[in-house]
């Protein structure tokens, strides 16, 4: 509510970024004052002042590239629950309520459990990992995420012998995700809720990060608050956001993008410069903030760590 950038009406009204940023500081102060005043706080939506998170940098799991500017990483997003445009998530993200929030972990496990988000965050030590993120649309970013390995959580619920895949489900709530409401003629971009999945060995890989923050703070709504997955060697859409359920299953999950366009988005979707998207090349990418394209690396530069997961597989067939 309060802190959103004012809508632009005419060019003469476009505010100098310096001005609105200082205004933003002022407003976050005002919002804090509101929260302190109980009578007003009930009337006000939670202000997007992001709480800092204490985490230890895990250098062994971090790239040394310069991190993308936080302004870019929080305003240039694909999060179809808010809309298909890159600025929809940051414009409309305020409708998502990341608290209270629970994550159900169940399926083929010995100890299924519904975790409260605040309890979940405290279960394991938080790490900061700088990963590169490659979008299937041929752009990339470098983001310092905060979280812990998904493997830690999965081990706690004890997957049994029938568990072969892990399915992630994003919140389904058209009141919080405006684009989940059917549009013209019942037109909807994807079949909600958003479902993603990993093979169990991919999910247990130490690089797979259950993520609750970025840039030293809790996740902004537009980046998948309050909890998301980050799988850095796969195209970005594999990393489900705003997760409410993690289910261990025996069959390969049918993912949202596979349903929408099976010829374009496969279950594996490992970053692979040698396999084109049917409509465009994946050989190179534009790193956000850079001018020239740079070559895309196999498995997004994580080949040493993850290539062995796919030994003997034809990656052209299992794209």
């Amino acid at each position, binding site marked *: 509510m309060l802190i959103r950038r004012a809508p632009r009406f005419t060019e003469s009204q476009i505010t100098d970024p310096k001005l609105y940023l200082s205004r933003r500081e002022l407003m976050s102060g005002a919002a804090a004052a509101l929260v302190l005043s109980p009578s007003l706080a009930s009337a006000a939506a939670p202000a997007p002042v992001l709480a800092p998170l204490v985490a230890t940098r895990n250098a062994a799991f971090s790239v040394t590239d310069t991190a993308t500017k936080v302004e870019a990483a929080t305003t240039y997003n694909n999060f179809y629950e808010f809309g298909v445009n890159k600025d929809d998530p940051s414009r409309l993200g305020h409708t998502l309520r990341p608290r209270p929030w629970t994550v159900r972990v169940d399926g083929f496990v010995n100890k299924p459990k519904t975790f409260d988000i605040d309890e979940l965050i405290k279960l394991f030590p938080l790490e900061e990992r700088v990963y590169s993120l490659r979008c299937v649309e041929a752009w990339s970013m470098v983001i310092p995420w905060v979280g812990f390995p998904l493997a830690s959580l999965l081990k706690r619920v004890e997957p049994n012998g029938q568990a072969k895949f892990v399915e992630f489900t994003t919140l389904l709530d058209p009141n919080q995700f405006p684009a989940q409401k059917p549009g013209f003629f019942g037109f909807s971009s994807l079949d909600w809720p958003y479902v993603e999945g990993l093979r169990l060995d991919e999910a247990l890989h130490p690089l797979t990060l259950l993520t609750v923050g970025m840039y030293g703070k809790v996740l902004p709504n537009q980046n998948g608050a309050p909890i998301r997955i980050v799988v850095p060697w796969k195209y970005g859409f594999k990393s489900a956001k705003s997760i409410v359920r993690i289910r261990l299953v025996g069959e390969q999950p049918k993912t949202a993008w596979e349903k929408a366009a099976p010829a374009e988005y496969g279950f594996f979707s490992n970053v692979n410069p040698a396999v*084109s998207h049917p*409509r465009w*090349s994946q050989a190179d990418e534009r790193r*956000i903030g850079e001018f020239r394209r740079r070559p895309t690396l196999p498995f997004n530069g994580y080949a040493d760590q993850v290539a062995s997961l796919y030994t003997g597989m034809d990656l052209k067939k299992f794209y």
Partner: protein
Amino acid sequence: MTRRGRVALKVVVWGVCLAPLALLAYRAWNDDLGANPISFITNTLGDWTLRILLASLAMTPLRIVFGLSWPITLRRLLGLFAFFYVCLHFSVWIVLDFFFDWPRMWADIVKRPYITIGMAALVSLIPLAATSTTGMIRRLGARNWTRLHRLAYVAAVCGVLHYTWLAKVGVKDPYWYATALVILLGVRVWEWGRRAMRRRHAAAAVGSRAENQLS
């Protein structure tokens, strides 16, 4: 329409057609093109190419449906502005997006259907821009010139397909352009059909009169 009215109309068209470019320049100057400026510029220029091209194709339907003749005087100007925007769109692709990486661009033109058809749209606009002067109309003859300029339909269809084929799932804008194009071309088809029918009736009438005279 008076001469003053016509001039005022053209000034408005110039203003409307240059405004998107001015806004783009203004935003570039203020470093306000978003996180992916090259993509933003390319998309904006592509959008305005299609909008102005469709506007140029709306002038004839305005006469057919509403009997207005003055919009026709704006058709050439709009067509040239569409060509201007498509040239900018293409230049950005060459210079900013691929930085003169000719082999890579050629590979995309050949391999990627949305780029192939986009190129087709651009190429089909070139002869139209080249023959847009009154002198060229005279040199070609009105009939040939009119025939050549039906390429505008090809350009618009290819341009809309270009956008439809590149847009990702869930993006609706290309379908609005497609709807507009179908309406604009549909009005013409309807008009051609009506005229053909009238000609046939006229021919039939002449034929029966001739028979009457013979008997």
